[in-house]
């Protein structure tokens, strides 16, 4: 019985961790390419979830087409945001850019509340609510799906960044913009693409999260866990963001169950920050953060 509970906890933790990981991944993608920290990333996630909710409930689209249409819409929205709001800020002080992305986050959150209301909304479940049995443990299908979908997405990402011309040019730009120009890389397009891809990742995270929770305008607060995931993994490491997210998802879930009786409720809320504090003391640049390669 104890093992079954552990298995359940780990699966739920991995599902939440996948969502944190994807939000953190969105942060890293934009940060690496453009040096901008996009505080609106969790709100993009939320917007994606709400948009596909509307497509499913109001337009009566089936889950998958609705999801794909949402991805297209979010790509367009975030590309426009990058070109019209963010790009004019290139060269402005870092603080100004931070304020703008924070403002963007608030605008998106406010508009979501205005349009969809502040009530919790039930996302139409694409999976049966019937749990599946795994080694005697009852596991939520949506959680399994979230984990598998995240894994698949990461494989696609890996292949894209490792082997495609566009992926390679994005990595080159992320490392050294002015040399990227010398390669003939269209750097502006890379900046836009990084926002577009980050919004795709965010939308996937949002829809997945909605399948095992519900919609509300503050669901972006899951992003508050993505931040420690990011710091844990190292701000500029894609692998770090993913592992950081998974570690925090699992750890807070385990702590919430096993430590609650000793430390009281709410322990799961602070687990992420406790872990980060401990890691920071040992490795201030995160588990996978920049090991600035020394030039020989």
């Amino acid at each position, binding site marked *: 019985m104890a093992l079954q509970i552990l298995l359940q906890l780990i699966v739920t933790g991995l599902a939440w961790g996948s969502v944190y990981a994807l939000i953190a991944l969105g942060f890293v993608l934009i940060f690496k390419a453009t040096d901008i920290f996009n505080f609106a990333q969790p709100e993009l996630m939320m917007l994606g979830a709400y948009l596909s909710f509307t497509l499913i409930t109001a337009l009566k689209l089936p889950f998958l087409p609705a999801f794909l249409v949402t991805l297209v819409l979010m790509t367009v929205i975030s590309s426009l945001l990058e070109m019209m709001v963010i790009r004019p800020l290139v060269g402005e002080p870092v603080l100004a850019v931070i304020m703008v992305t924070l403002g963007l986050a608030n605008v998106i959150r406010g508009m979501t509340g205005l349009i969809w209301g502040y009530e919790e909304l039930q996302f139409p479940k694409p999976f049966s609510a019937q749990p599946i049995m795994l080694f005697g443990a009852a596991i939520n299908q949506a959680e399994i799906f979230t984990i598998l979908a995240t894994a698949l997405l990461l494989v696609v990402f890996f292949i894209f960044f490792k082997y495609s*011309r566009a992926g*390679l*040019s994005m*990595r*080159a730009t992320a*490392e*050294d*913009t*002015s*040399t990227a*120009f*010398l*390669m*003939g*890389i*269209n750097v502006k397009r890379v900046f836009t693409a990084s926002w577009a891809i980050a919004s795709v990742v965010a939308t996937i995270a949002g829809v997945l999260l909605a399948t095992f929770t519900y919609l509300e305008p503050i669901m972006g607060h899951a992003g508050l866990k993505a931040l420690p995931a990011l710091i844990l993994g190292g701000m500029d490491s894609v692998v770090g963001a993913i592992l950081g997210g998974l570690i925090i998802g699992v750890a807070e879930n385990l702590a919430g169950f096993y430590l609650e009786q000793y430390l009281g409720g709410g322990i799961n809320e602070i687990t992420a920050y406790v872990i980060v504090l401990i890691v920071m003391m040992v490795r201030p640049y995160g588990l996978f953060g920049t090991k600035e*390669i*020394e*030039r*020989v």
Partner: protein
Amino acid sequence: MLRINNLEVVYNDIILVLRGISLEAPEAAIIAFLGSNGAGKSTTLRAISGLLPYEDGEITKGTIEYRGEAVHTFDPQRIVGLGITQVPEGRRVFAELTVEENIRVGAHTRRDGKEEFRRDYDRVLAYFPALSRRLRVQAGFVSGGEQQMLAIARAFMARPSLMMLDEPSLGLAPLLVTEIFDIIRKINAEERVSVLLVEQNALMALAIAEYGYIMENGKIVLDGPSHKLMENEDVKEFYLGMKSDKERKSFAEVKHYKRRKRWLS
């Protein structure tokens, strides 16, 4: 093929860095572009590559023509597409990318298919056999000499007709510099690529170049065929270090040279 006319460049709207320079690089030639620290050599290359707008620099006067076309308003992609590539100062390899990926990214603008790419990839490794043993290593971890070779290989992959190299000898052991200069000469001869070679190592540069320009404080102060420059007393003194015990003055202050205007239009 490349012709710069009376180019003036200003940084941050006030700092005048190039004060009307003119320079020409003919087809399939090696041109040495010499001058001391801060003379404006890298700025000239940045202007040609179209990078100035991104460095808060601006061309305020003059033109850059490439094969008869005015190109000084083009963006960097377009310049690379025309066949002008640059090996930047300090090599600037993508340290987190592998050696192989660095070579691939050099071919970013090309759309002539896998086979052509493969052919040039093999060719570039034939020029730099040292790289073929390091293909899967992150470029940040290979030696300085290998990084310089990689930076040249990367620029080669764009299939340039003009390759601009910014101080390729910087920080390298003399033997390695000789090796790299030999390869530059070979690439120039075999691929008919023009080379604009920025150097502080004047002796090495003039040894492989047909023609040289010497720049001081944003101006070309002397130019001529390499052998003539090497015989020039001032060049000997200030750039070839042949009278190094003498007190060093700025080249521009030396009054008695006569500036040759042969290459100016």
